């Protein structure tokens, strides 16, 4: 993202401005904890070796597992494992008193995101997101391709535009927990239409109008609904966000980012270690 605008044609001011949106663009984490908007992911890669964790509340009308019956809590972590590859783990838990067969730790899901193209001055970033196919209940799978581009508006104001397409198919492994000893067995292609809630199934679009990296307003089409939201970032690490889904119910969440690269400050600032 930083090389985005440090292009040959870039003016003097662009590389300077860049400092701001290099973090801003991915400070915002979507419902599954990936850099993105509210439901939809964006194409920008998380900063190299960054690790984030957070929580999202998903209201009952838009619940993935038991739609219109139970709201959900989603806990997520995201790691920039390689410069272009992110790993996302999330845990989806239904809220409230559950029937015995619905209890348990929740649905764990592993997603990966690969940055196919970095953003340049004339082309958007392009990423592909895939859910690991070995879950036996993939109601929350993200299989999508997204493109994102930042457009400077006014000084310190930027528009992050994302468009993409979510696969209307997903992979399911029909397996009982008692015989679930081979993660590569019984893989089946299923239509998202059969699910009670179709997460990322069809065209996606989103716009984030933000002020530096401090916060922004979000609007997105998540393939099913139009959602509006806002977020703020505190101390460059802590994001808080809320959104109105389909003009109907509210989702909210928070996330925190850590960079795994720096050595302890006492060594970085010491002259004697150089």
């Amino acid at each position, binding site marked *: 993202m930083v090389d985005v605008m440090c292009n040959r044609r870039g003016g003097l001011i662009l590389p300077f401005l860049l400092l701001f949106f290099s973090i801003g663009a991915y400070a915002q984490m979507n419902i599954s904890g990936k850099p993105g908007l509210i439901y939809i992911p964006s194409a920008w890669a998380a900063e*190299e*070796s960054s690790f984030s964790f957070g929580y999202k509340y998903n209201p009952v009308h838009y619940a993935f597992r038991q739609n219109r019956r139970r709201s959900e809590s989603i806990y997520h972590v995201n*790691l920039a*494992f*390689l*410069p272009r590859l992110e*790993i996302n*783990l999330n845990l989806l838990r239904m809220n409230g008193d559950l029937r*015995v*067969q619905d*209890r*348990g*730790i*929740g649905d*764990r899901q592993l997603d990966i995101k690969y940055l196919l193209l970095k953003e340049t001055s004339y082309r958007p970033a392009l990423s592909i997101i895939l859910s*690991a196919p*070995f879950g036996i209940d993939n109601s929350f799978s993200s299989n999508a391709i997204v493109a994102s581009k930042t457009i400077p508006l006014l000084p310190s104001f930027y528009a992050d535009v994302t468009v993409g397409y979510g696969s209307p198919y997903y992979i399911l492994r029909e397996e009982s*927990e008692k015989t*679930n*000893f*081979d*993660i*590569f*067995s019984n893989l089946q292609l299923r239509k998202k239409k059969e699910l009670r809630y179709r997460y990322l199934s069809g065209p996606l679009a989103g716009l984030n109008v933000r002020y530096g990296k401090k916060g922004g307003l979000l609007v997105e089409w998540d393939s099913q609904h139009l959602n509006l939201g806002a977020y703020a970032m505190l101390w460059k690490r802590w994001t808080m966000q809320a959104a109105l889904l389909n003009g109907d119910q509210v989702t909210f969440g928070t996330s925190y980012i850590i960079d*795994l*690269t*720096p*050595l*302890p400050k006492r*060594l*970085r600032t*010491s*002259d*004697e*270690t*150089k």
Partner: protein
Amino acid sequence: MKRSKLLTVVVLGLLLRPALAQPGLSETARQRVRQNFENVALDTLNHTVYYEQRLYRNPFIGLAEMRQVLDDRRIKAFVPMIQGVPVGRYMLNSSLDMEPLSEDERKSYYQQSPFRWQNYKFDFWIQPVFAAIFGNRERPVQSNTSVLLQTQLYLFRGLVFNGGILFPITNHLDGRPQIIRPAPLFLNYFRAIGQSQFLSATAGTFYNDRYGINLQYRHMDLSSPWSFGLEAGLTGFYYYPRGGIYYTNLNELLLQADVAYRLPVPDLTLKLSGGQYLHNDRGVRFDFIRQFTNVEVGLYAMKTRNGATAGFNFAIPIPPGKILQGERARLRTGEEFRWEYTYSRGFSIGERYRVGYQLDQRLRQYHQNYLNRQYLQLR
């Protein structure tokens, strides 16, 4: 390095030269940092310092701190040791360079600086252990959690006795009594053979309820990408019922071979391993291991006769590290917390046990590229 007169100085020895103190850390702060090290020896003729540190899982922090508090700025070569055995020679130039030590160089150091257990602190650390399975309807997290108070006794060069006490916190995994009991008790012998071969032999009671013997061999040039290893273990099952110990015969063989390739950017190791696991399971496993500065994260998949599964693992330092430290004794937190998540449970797919450290995990922390990338952060 030629055979030379080696000035052997213990931690105390470093303190004899406070006059040349550099601006930066105050003298008291420098003395505090010096206490992080054990078995320090200066070879002023070859501008080399030998030292051992058990505080940090990331050896670079030890290296940078040693550089920070050395009064003699001409010392350019740093030789960290594992259990009294020099690992390699690291030079801090415009980049961090590494040279393997020859057998002769090691011998010369051993002669000049004979092993003395008094060169080591009484070192105690607190180590959490957490094993869990997920997915039970009534109790989503079934865990076996305990806190260990551990220590090491250095017997002679390379040979260390590890022991401690285990304090149980939770146990939903088995019906065994939650009693305060011995932590794993074992002897470990670490040895370097030639320039780039290493051996770790362990005998005693291990983690994961196994006891017996375990041998690990690794050929690893710490500046080249390829390495390979062999591991053999013969173990039985044990646990502590109330008022005694229960154990089976030494009846399970673990046999592993692996080959690993390390990509310098971005500190990614690809490792293919295979062989026999516990419960007579046989198969192969592929690991991607990324070394971040202080944290390691791995992803893996495996296919064995018992099934196929995948998961991830990580190793993180345990804050706060040092708790109390003096010249002769120290209380700290364990240098790392290591944990592995496996997607499948209950099918005994590729299971193994853990001894004190795995040779490949320990050695890749000393790889030149890993340390150099950190060194470049400081320049």
